[in-house]
């Protein structure tokens, strides 16, 4: 999937064409709907939640789902629906910034390596391999253990391990273009490497980056949940899906709703993002679809 699209620079890539193809892809439509819903819920939580998640009403604790508390309450009497709403905001924010860090640093590095080749390329890619060799979540645990638990360090940790993903992807994709005729033409015309990268390479590899970004986004949400589960992510009183699961585990036998709802939130969000990523790949890379 790292091969560049042959028709990319020739096709009409206007919005109408994109929309037409997008609506035909069922997995994209479903996935995007779910992702938008989660995003909307996260945004809504800034303005409104059914209950205040920082106010504990111990007298109302461990209630099963009801008309007052749709998803029930936890052991402190907090409304689980409200916590999931605020948790969505945290998950999205962490994943978004982490992917942003990965793209923002990884793509320039990768395209630079592809343009420069030689020793710079070698050094960079070996360094990438080095980071890649560590299991990402384990290293994120290490980073937060050293710099202290908290949402900021979690973002940094997840972001750092997104850098090589994007560096490698953009380098591989960019390399293919550097031998193509339209790039040669641009070089003959006297454009510098940086300018060519910005004007010609980046637009051509952007499809790939978007698809990969969606996948990394869902991995980021999983990573945030994992870090919070072991207590290294968002700290109380900030709700987080991972920590909700952690708190629920000793109460599974009598309050299963405490685990079911945050668990579903994670599953549905990740599923939605993955479907959206798959759909996007099919839409943006028609050649790939034909071959598959």
């Amino acid at each position, binding site marked *: 999937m790292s091969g560049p699209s042959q028709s990319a620079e020739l096709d009409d890539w206007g919005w109408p064409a994109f929309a037409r193809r997008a609506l035909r892809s069922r997995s994209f439509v479903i996935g995007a709907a779910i992702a938008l819903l989660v995003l909307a819920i996260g945004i809504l939580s800034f303005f409104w939640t059914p209950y205040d998640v*920082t*106010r*504990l009403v*111990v*007298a109302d*604790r461990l209630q099963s789902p009801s008309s007052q508390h749709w998803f029930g309450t936890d*052991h*402190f*009497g907090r409304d689980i629906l409200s916590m999931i709403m605020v948790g969505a905001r945290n998950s999205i924010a962490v994943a978004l910034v982490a992917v942003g860090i990965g793209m923002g640093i990884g793509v320039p590095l990768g395209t630079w390596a592809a343009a420069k080749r030689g020793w710079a390329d070698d050094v960079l890619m070996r360094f990438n391999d080095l980071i890649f060799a560590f299991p990402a979540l384990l290293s994120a645990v290490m980073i937060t253990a050293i710099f202290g*638990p908290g949402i900021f360090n979690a973002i940094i940790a997840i972001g750092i391990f997104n850098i090589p993903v994007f560096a490698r992807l953009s380098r591989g994709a960019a390399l293919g273009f550097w031998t193509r005729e339209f790039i040669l033409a641009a070089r003959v015309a006297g454009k510098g490497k940086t300018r060519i990268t910005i004007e010609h390479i980046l637009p051509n590899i952007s499809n790939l980056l978007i698809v990969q970004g969606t996948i990394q986004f869902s991995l980021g949400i999983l990573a945030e949940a994992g870090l919070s589960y072991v*207590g290294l992510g968002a*700290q*109380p*009183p900030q709700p987080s899906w991972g920590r909700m699961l952690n708190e629920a*585990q*000793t*109460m599974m*036998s*009598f309050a299963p709703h405490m685990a079911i709802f945050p668990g579903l939130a994670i599953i549905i969000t990740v599923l939605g993002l993955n479907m959206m990523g798959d759909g996007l790949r099919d839409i943006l890379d028609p050649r790939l679809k034909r071959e598959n």
Partner: protein
Amino acid sequence: MITHLKLAAAVVVASMLAVSNPAHAAKDTIVLGMPLEPPHLDPTAGAAAAIDEVVYANVFEGLTRINRNGEVLPALAESWEISEDGKTYTFKLHSGVKFHDGTTFDAEDVKFSLDRARSDDSTNAQKKLFAAIESVEVVDPSTVKITLSSAAGNFLFNLGWGDAVIVAPESADTNKENPVGTGPFKFSDWVQGSSVELVRNDDYWGEPVALSKATIRFIPDASAAIAALQSGDVDAYPNISAPESIPAFQADPRFTVVIGSTEGETILSTNNKRPPFDNIKVRQAIAHTLDRQAIIDGAMFGLGTPIGTHFAPHHPAYVTETIDTYPKDLEKAKALLKEAGLADGFKAKLHLPPPTYARRGGEIIASQLREIGIDLEVIPVEWKQWLEGPFKGDYDLTIVSHTEPMDIGIYADPDYYFQYDSPEFQAVIDKLNETTDEAARYELLGEAQKIVSRDAVNGFLFELAKAGVWNAKLKGLWENVPVQANDLTEVMWTE
């Protein structure tokens, strides 16, 4: 083929017999679970409760011991005489007692142990237990005379602490890894990070124990501990840290669940020197805001008794009225903050060590204090960080359970991490230390409780309950925790 079948049948029948007739092989081993692993195994050189919870009464013994009801009983000393002025204690020691390495126990070991514990370079965590001792004399191999500088009402109780056990000069330096005591169990093995194994001491001087082997496993994770009990991997977990799991165990006939009391005053420790907590009005405002029952219900699922001062409510000297010194009253709390010049509230940090009572209690307290405008940043810390930070006085607020028995005396030490410096309180404790008459002592203890309650030194929350879960066929484990211990000497299987 046929012989094979016969053999198989015989094996099946034999195994069925074995299952249906367990009485022939009465079980005499136990696997006991504990949340924390001790840093080492020398109770005379460390404050960690986990050390005593492994070795107290099992491996090590002192001159006296404290039993399951908190009473002082003779141990290595079979009897004692106290002089008229209360300053001279003459202990008659048991004879024929041997340490686990075969060396003989006598009066020299007592002198060695007590002098070692109170020496200047001693690493004993409770040196104040020995502060009253002026000299320890060996009268003859089975008699020791201890002279005190002033009468100490609590002296026999103090000698029953894990920190006051008798060790041998030959093995004292290696007790951390290889504890050698006089108790009914011998240390056999320690798999770091997993378990300690104790085996019966067949040369024990006293009543022999029923168990031949005890394995103490360290399971810090509450859900893992619950699973280990459910599956039978662990026979007993005397202090389960997930109170929410108790109803399920109570409903299961395989288990005995005992809710006992501890000596753990769970408090919102406050740095009395650091502004704004140096202002009594701020501390009173906090006291007026805390809803103890909500904390007990939310953090401990209802297990625990509210306290109004630093004293065990099951003790006869407890002053019940202290619970009402600062009843919940948000208006009054806000007014007090206003008087302190903090009408808009303030920000502070709340450090939370790992136990459930602290982590969950902290979230509830942060929520309660937010109601009067105090915005707490919750900082979870590991015990190591806690001991190096808050316990050394670098903190605003923290939550901890003080599990030592009768420890209200810590408020008399201005350098203790509360940093509470009250000459009035210190005078009461000085007088208490010199008083031996029980009624007079209770009077003074009551006075001390009222002072710390009145000064709102800390947020007094609740007395920690101990929820013990063990196999219903086990008997002899302690219901309550008068001292930090898992005394296995009377534990046995009923079938």
